[in-house]
């Protein structure tokens, strides 16, 4: 019945709601511990849960129910499945998802589910801290760290660190201290909370949460600078939070604080953060080194990335170091080397798996947050809770303004008031604060009060700030993220600028930002890459890698769009920019060329038609073809979408044929040859042609007729059938297509892949 209802999802209005409702009901049911330990027999049942404890004889049980056997994985799977169905549901309903961020909706769902469960009388599950920290959080952080945009991050790392460290410290002490002051007020009736308790609470509630920030900022697409500032801060403040939390917890247990303890606390901070980073870096290099050897076992490559990162996280948690920083460091360090080593498919796999896991985690976290809210024992105190919310806001605003004032003295690109507002407003709290609060031992008498306050702050920031930030961003006309992909010109000039600025710094004698960046990158190239990148690829400069990626994408697009279909918009081709003077062709030669070509074209038209341009077609292409050469050539051909020949004039004639279709096909053949020649020579008409690797073809001849200075492979201009050449071209073309379905970043032997689906990255 369920499936029928889902199938009817578009059949009648309100059906979507009913589907959602059904899903909710299912979620509820999954949480109920079904007592199905008794097996059901077709005949009268006997007592006892084990099949082996049968004392009376009965018929063989054809079917039985044993829920206990599968209970835990069943429930987990069902929760995840239903959480994802929720997520799906939100995106089907367009109006809601454009106003309310997904995180809010998920929390509401969690609340509803929790409510249902409570109504039914069962105990709703609470977000277990261990589950959260060990299973739900790492995928999100790894996803963030692996795809962290390095350039804006390193450009702003000073600002980010100041916000993360000093900002969080300020928040913790301000909130803790003010709450303590608040508690001293008689009328509030909270005298039992000591200073240390308050400070502990302050440290829990002051950290900006990466999950919440990601969830909200993902949807508003603000410019890169602001995104990286808030997001970077939320990632790097983990070290501070860990240290403060452990510190205050210890102090609370002991009861007193000495100066030595404070000093040790500071030392601890450095140990935790730098230690975490170090652990991450070590694992990152290990992963990079391992990926160097995976060329024969491509299938498990993504697993190495995931496992090494997870190990980094667990190892640092083992030593009470900052797991988040370890994870980020691991991802950042590992990425450039791993990406140079792994195949294209592995890269896509990694990307999609990371996105998938982080998406699931995020969904689960928010739903559980909602459920836990309903579940957890609450202790409400107006003054405390409201005080917390207000103080958090105030301290955030003050902190951002104060720090920006100092930071702007050192920044070139100053932070404007708008930027400050967004940074302050984007300081969302989330599940980390909740989990840390939940971890508080029961020795705290005010644990429930703290939890309630934390949840209130989380709700406030996620709901109020999360929902209003989008209209505010539009209202304030904050700069948005630019959507366009990088073009090759931008890439060239970015590198050019790097070198230029470095040069100017050297002229001024100033060892600045660019100087060190350049030194690091040269060190990287000479020593590190040699060890961590397989094959000869480590020499490849970034620009070339970028260019190859671009080529690859173009070639893939070309294959997918049906090869050289004329549906490709042709704008500019090589001949438009080639500055060489067009040699004069005598009328007689023109005529002859036209005649030859037309006759050849006629011959091959049928052939071309009958051949199927399927990329599954097997071929006997010469394996020894240099992969990159072929790729370059074909992409070049792709770029000249229109017909072009090196000698522009000739092509002009070729495009005026009797028959509309054939010239494209035929001339393409001509162009192949010329492209081939183009690659191996200079474009100057006086240059020699190197012998092309293909058997010489008659169409080359037609060009050679014009340029007698060239070395001829053949001297006669005969209407030779160049079917073989066509065939050759096509085979090469298809070999390219096939190779491209799993190309890898460098030459490698072709793999048998059963799955020809090409992932567009």
């Amino acid at each position: 019945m369920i499936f029928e209802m889902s199938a009817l999802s578009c059949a009648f209005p309100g059906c979507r709601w009913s589907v959602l409702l059904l899903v909710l009901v299912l979620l509820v049911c999954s949480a109920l511990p079904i007592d199905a330990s008794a097996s059901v027999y077709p005949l009268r049942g006997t007592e006892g849960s084990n099949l082996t404890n049968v004392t009376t004889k009965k018929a063989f049980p054809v079917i039985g129910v044993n829920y206990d056997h599968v209970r835990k994985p069943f429930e987990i799977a069902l929760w995840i499945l239903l959480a994802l169905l929720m997520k799906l549901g939100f995106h089907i309903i367009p109006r809601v998802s454009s106003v309310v961020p997904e995180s809010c909706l998920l929390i509401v769902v969690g609340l509803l589910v929790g409510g249902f469960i409570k109504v039914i009388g069962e105990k709703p599950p609470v977000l277990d801290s261990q589950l959260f920290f060990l299973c739900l959080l790492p995928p999100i952080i790894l996803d963030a760290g692996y795809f962290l945009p390095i350039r804006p991050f390193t450009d702003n790392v000073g600002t980010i660190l100041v916000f993360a460290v000093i900002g969080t410290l300020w928040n913790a002490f301000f909130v803790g201290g003010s709450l303590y002051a608040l508690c001293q007020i008689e009328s509030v009736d909270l005298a039992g909370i000591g200073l240390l308790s308050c400070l502990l609470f302050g440290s829990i509630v002051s950290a900006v949460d990466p999950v919440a920030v990601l969830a909200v900022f993902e949807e508003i697409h603000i410019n890169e600078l602001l995104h990286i500032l808030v997001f970077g801060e939320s990632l790097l403040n983990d070290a501070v939070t860990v240290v403060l939390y452990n510190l205050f917890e210890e102090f609370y247990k002991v009861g007193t604080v000495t100066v030595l303890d404070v000093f040790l606390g500071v030392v601890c901070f450095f140990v935790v953060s730098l230690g975490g980073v170090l652990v991450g870096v070590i694992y990152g290099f290990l992963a990079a080194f391992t990926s160097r050897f995976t060329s024969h076992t491509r299938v498990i490559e993504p697993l190495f990335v995931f496992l090494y990162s997870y190990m980094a996280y667990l190892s640092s948690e083992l030593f009470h170091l900052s797991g988040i920083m370890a994870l980020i460091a691991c991802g950042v360090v590992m990425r450039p080397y791993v990406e140079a080593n792994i195949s294209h498919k592995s890269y896509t796999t990694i990307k999609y798996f990371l996105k998938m896991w982080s998406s699931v985690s995020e969904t689960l976290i928010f739903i559980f947050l909602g459920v836990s809210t309903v579940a957890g024992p609450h202790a409400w105190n107006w003054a405390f809770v409201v005080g917390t919310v207000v103080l958090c806001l105030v301290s955030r605003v003050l902190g951002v303004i104060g720090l920006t004032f100092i930071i702007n003295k050192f920044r070139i690109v100053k932070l404007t008031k708008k930027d400050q507002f967004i940074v302050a407003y984007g300081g969302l709290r989330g599940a980390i604060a909740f989990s840390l609060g939940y971890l508080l031992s029961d020795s705290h008498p005010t644990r429930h009060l703290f939890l309630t306050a934390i949840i209130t702050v989380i709700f406030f920031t996620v709901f109020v700030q999360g929902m209003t930030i989008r209209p505010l961003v539009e209202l304030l006309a904050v700069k948005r993220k630019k959507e366009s992909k990088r073009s090759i010109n931008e890439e060239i000039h970015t590198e050019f600028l790097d070198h230029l600025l470095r040069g100017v710094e050297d002229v001024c004698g100033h060892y600045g930002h660019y100087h060190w960046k350049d030194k690091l990158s040269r060190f990287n190239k000479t020593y590190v890459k040699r060890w961590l990148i397989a094959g000869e690829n480590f020499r490849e400069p970034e620009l070339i890698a970028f260019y190859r990626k671009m080529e690859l994408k173009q070639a893939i697009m070309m294959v997918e769009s049906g090869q050289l279909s004329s549906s490709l918009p042709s704008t500019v081709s090589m001949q438009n920019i080639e500055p060489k003077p067009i040699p004069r062709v005598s009328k007689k030669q023109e005529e002859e060329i036209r005649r030859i070509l037309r006759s050849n074209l006629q011959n091959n038209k049928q052939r071309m038609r009958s051949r199927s341009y399927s990329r599954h077609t097997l071929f006997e292409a010469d394996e020894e073809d240099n992969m990159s050469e072929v790729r370059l050539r074909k992409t070049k051909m792709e770029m000249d979408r229109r017909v072009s020949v090196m000698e522009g004039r000739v092509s002009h004639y070729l495009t005026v044929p009797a028959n509309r279709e054939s010239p494209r096909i035929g001339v393409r053949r001509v162009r192949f040859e010329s492209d081939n020649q183009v690659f191996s020579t200079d474009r100057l008409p006086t240059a020699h042609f190197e012998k092309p690797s293909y058997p010489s073809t008659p169409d080359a001849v037609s060009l050679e007729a014009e340029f007698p200075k060239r070395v001829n492979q053949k001297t006669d201009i005969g209407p030779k059938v160049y079917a073989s050449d066509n065939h050759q071209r096509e085979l090469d073309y298809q070999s390219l297509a096939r190779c491209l379905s799993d190309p890898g970043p460098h030459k490698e032997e072709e793999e048998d892949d059963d799955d020809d689906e090409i992932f567009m990255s």
Partner: protein
Amino acid sequence: MSSRTNRWRKTVSLEQINNLNKRFRQLSSNKETLSREDLASIPDLDNNPIRLQIINAFFDKRNLSQSEVGIVQEIGFEEFLMVLTHFQPAAMDITEDNREKLRRTKLRFLFNMHDTDGNGIITLEEYRQAVEELLSKAGTIAPETVKAIADAAMLDVASTTRGKMEPDEFYEGITFEHFLQILKTLDIETTMHVRFLNLDTANMRCGK
């Protein structure tokens, strides 16, 4: 004193100018003018792939004044400063107009670096040359690859700026306006700057 240098002097402190002067003296071995050899002898520049172009930029008349074209052989401190003004950062309260002017100035500097023959257009050959220089220190690169990259870039410019072209139309080269257009996403006014703050180059202390 040119107006640009004057404007810069307002945003830069006397101390920084003194530091630069010290550096100038150091580079020119206490002579009044700086020659190409002086700049070429800076050891740090050796690893820079576009070294020659940077040095040329200091002696390019187009960067020193708006109207002339050509190369000078020696520059004084005034001219040294004038070239360096191209790298000043945008002030925080800069107006939209001034920001645009700053962009044009900086992009003009870049343009001049590519346009080696001074005719106001970056031709395919010049662009190829630029890409080749850029990749020159990166080990052995096949010349076809260099050419392919430069060609791809040129095609990109042509198709962005001119759109559809007939087969017998010819795209002369990148004009300054086209150059502005293709690089407008780079935020040149904020990225093309060097920190001149707290320079004490006489001791070659590491900067921020």
